[in-house]
């Protein structure tokens, strides 16, 4: 069964706060939920399906369903890290197509910044029962040095340079200058990035995303319901997911699971990367963007460095505008999970509601993609192709 044309994104909301010491995590979830429902022109009583990821406090979706006093007939707490919310849109479309719900609410929220959790540079504190734990945690694997090993191997095999990676941050900063909520609004240069302090070779401070509180929500509905709402109709055209892992120790770090999910999503949508006018791509690090653009087929494997250079990702300048809200590199990265904001900005672009300075003219087909977990060990990927009707 295909999900093409089976569901629409009717409501979006991005929490404006980047630091929220005076709010609870559940409260933030409820605020973004109500924001997205108001955006759609629906109420919380209309919600009959609820989706959340690993940021939800409690057992799966249970505590938040209780907190918000929802009355749902379908719930899904699939967790593949930061890309979960992109995957949830696909799962919501599947559930709607199967008749399991009509109005699906997806939320993400948290406050690592208020809680002092700068997660990227400290060794992981994952569950010690997980089988990989004794082989990785004592080696002081962190998020940043594991992603750095992917970038290092990519540089070795393909000659990718730090200056090329820096262009990704430069493009994000050009977009963020127009976003009043963005954490980092100053436009930076390639020199600024490569001269910023080295965190873990070859990733500099400005190759890394921000840490922020906040969150976001999406409302996915049956097309018949979307038609009756006074909002632009943003249809799910295709979606796919994949998992890549260490394969018993026989892996290749230079590609991500986007190479598996991307082609499936394009096949379902019946289009090619050339048809896409705008992309939101998860940008935990500059390198994350580079490999995913290659893996999705926007350029040949290994040619990502040249592809992202010279402003090719800057809206109004290059061929493939990306992350026009400033992305995780400049805007926000709520709860270390960038998938939600990727979908939100994609919907803004398709509605023509992005900032005028970064709005892509005639944006009718767009893609949101993310990876979650860790590119250096095991991760999930979700690709979503959306169309304005």
């Amino acid at each position, binding site marked *: 069964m295909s999900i093409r044309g089976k569901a629409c994104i009717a409501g979006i909301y991005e929490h404006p706060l980047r630091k929220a010491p005076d709010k609870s995590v559940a409260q933030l979830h409820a605020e973004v939920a109500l924001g997205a429902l108001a955006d759609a022109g629906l109420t919380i009583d209309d919600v009959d399906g609820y989706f959340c990821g690993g940021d939800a406090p409690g057992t799966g979706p249970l505590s938040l369903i209780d907190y918000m006093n929802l009355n749902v007939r379908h719930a899904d707490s699939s967790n593949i890290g930061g890309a979960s919310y992109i995957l949830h849109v696909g799962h919501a479309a599947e559930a709607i197509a199967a008749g399991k719900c009509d109005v699906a609410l997806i939320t993400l929220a948290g406050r690592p910044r208020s809680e002092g959790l700068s997660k990227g*540079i400290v060794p992981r504190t994952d569950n010690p029962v997980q089988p990989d734990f004794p082989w990785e945690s004592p080696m*002081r*694997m962190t998020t940043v*040095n*594991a992603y750095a*090993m992917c970038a*290092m191997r990519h540089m070795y095999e393909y000659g990718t340079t730090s200056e090329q990676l820096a262009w990704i941050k430069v493009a994000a900063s050009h977009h963020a200058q127009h976003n009043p909520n963005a954490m980092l609004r100053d436009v930076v240069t390639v020199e600024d990035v490569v001269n910023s302090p080295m965190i873990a070779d070859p990733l500099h401070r400005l190759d890394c995303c921000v840490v922020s509180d906040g969150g976001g929500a999406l409302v996915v509905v049956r097309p018949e319901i979307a038609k009756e709402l006074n909002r632009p109709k943003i249809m799910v055209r295709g979606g796919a997911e994949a998992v890549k892992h260490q394969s*018993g120790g026989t892996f290749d770090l230079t590609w991500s699971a986007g190479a598996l999910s991307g082609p499936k999503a394009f096949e379902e949508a019946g289009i090619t990367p050339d048809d896409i006018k705008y992309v939101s791509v998860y940008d935990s690090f500059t390198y994350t963007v580079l490999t995913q653009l290659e893996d999705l087929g926007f350029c040949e494997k290994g040619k990502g460095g040249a592809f992202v250079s010279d402003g090719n990702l800057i809206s109004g300048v290059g061929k493939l505008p990306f992350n026009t809200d400033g992305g995780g590199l400049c805007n926000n990265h709520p709860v270390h999970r960038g998938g939600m904001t990727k979908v939100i900005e994609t919907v803004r672009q398709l509605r023509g509601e992005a900032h005028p300075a970064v709005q892509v003219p005639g944006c009718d087909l767009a893609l949101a993609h993310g990876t979650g977990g860790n590119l250096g060990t095991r991760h999930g990927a979700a690709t979503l192709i959306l169309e304005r009707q």
Partner: protein
Amino acid sequence: MADFSDLMIHHPETAEFWQALEEGRFLIRFCADCEKAHWYPRAICPHCHSAHTEWREGSGEGNIYSYSVMRRAETPYTIAYVRLDEGPILMTNIVDSDLEAITVEHRVRLAWGHKVDGQTMPMFALS
């Protein structure tokens, strides 16, 4: 982590590996059916899913597949993936070496005597 032996309560499957390391032996898990080595070690072969897996002595030699020096740490350290001569790639630290001399595909060998939380760890040094 507190004491490594606390962690091993959860991982009886690989206790023999860690014990052998304390005795100066580096073991690699092989499958007696498909004859392939794998990493990290498991009771069930991840390649062919046979339960006929066994420990064999590893050479303790390989090449750096990739690495990163964590400059942000108080004392910089090097995480790496090493491709063992037996085939599989393992996550490790490069120790007893000049950080600036580390390169991708550099030859490495097992460096003994490096403990974390009281347990000897399979770390490597530049050859």
